[in-house]
């Protein structure tokens, strides 16, 4: 009997137990880290020598951009697990994560646009980086719409999972767009082979905000997955109730009085 099995965490009953125990701590840590991150980003960190105070938009834009791609990777991975192993909790995870990813992508696009106007002199350009992130936003919306477009939830989940996997080709395009094509967008400053090109006084607030965004995502993902599991249980209860009422009606109808017109 192995000590560690993935089913210890993905079995719905066990999932409800450990996620319920973890959530209060997770929520408290999330709020604390986000508060510290906001203080570091808005007050403690220095202004940039070129950008001045406008650099503070980085602490919103960059974590949101990382989350946009990271959450999509999770949606795609969970979709693969759901398609290959038919694990219903994986479908639930993908469907719970997608709206959160869409939210982060929206924040990334809006904060990026607000940062672009004073720094580049334009709100938007149709270059590779910006366009591929806009495509990511529409992939999220398309996934959500497709999942909900079927009467049979399992067919919707399957169609959504295939779309999520095909759409995953956008992730490397986003990552390498700044190297492959000419763009106004600067290349990577933090996630590079030769180490971060950013001052520690800015890197630390940036990583704190990123940790806060990640914790918020995990917290809300667990809340939404718990909600979906409870909703499934509620549906099963109601179906069982309807089936029982139908049986009761059938028994009554086949009784001696069933021939009497009502």
């Amino acid at each position: 009997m192995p000590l560690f099995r993935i089913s210890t965490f993905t079995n719905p009953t066990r999932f409800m137990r450990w996620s319920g125990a973890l959530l209060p701590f997770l929520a408290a840590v999330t709020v604390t880290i986000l508060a510290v991150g906001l203080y570091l980003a808005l007050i403690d960190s220095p202004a940039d020598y070129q950008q001045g105070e406008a650099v503070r938009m980085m602490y919103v834009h960059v974590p949101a951009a990382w989350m946009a791609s990271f959450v999509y990777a999770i949606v795609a991975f969970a979709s693969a697990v759901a398609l290959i192993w038919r694990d219903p909790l994986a479908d639930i995870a993908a469907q719970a994560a997608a709206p959160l990813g869409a939210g982060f992508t929206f924040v990334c696009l809006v904060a990026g646009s607000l940062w672009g106007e004073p720094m580049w002199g334009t709100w938007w350009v149709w270059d590779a980086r910006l366009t591929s992130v806009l495509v990511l936003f529409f992939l999220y919306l398309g996934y959500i719409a497709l999942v909900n477009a079927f009467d049979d939830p399992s067919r919707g989940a399957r169609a959504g999972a295939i779309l999520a996997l095909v759409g995953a080709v956008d992730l490397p395009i986003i990552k390498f767009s700044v190297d492959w094509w000419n763009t106004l967008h600067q290349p990577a400053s933090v996630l590079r082979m030769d180490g971060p090109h950013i001052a520690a006084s800015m890197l630390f607030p940036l990583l704190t905000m990123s940790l806060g965004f990640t914790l918020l995502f995990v917290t809300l993902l667990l809340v939404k997955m718990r909600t979906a599991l409870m909703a499934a249980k509620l549906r099963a209860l109601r179906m069982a109730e309807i089936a029982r009422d139908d049986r009761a009606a059938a028994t009554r109808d086949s009784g001696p009085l069933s021939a009497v017109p009502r």
Partner: protein
Amino acid sequence: MSGLDTFLSMGGYARFVWPAYGVAALVLIGMAVQAVGAYRRTKAALEAAQGNKRGRGG
């Protein structure tokens, strides 16, 4: 007071910095409120349904 004014003016970038933080706060808090609201509604409905079942002795 002037310290606060300096802070709020964001070196002349106030009209970009504050909307960026505002939209982020709106979206992130909105996602949290939506998720917790749906959680509470579903939990209440499930408990009500389970209560009905026991009440009828089924």
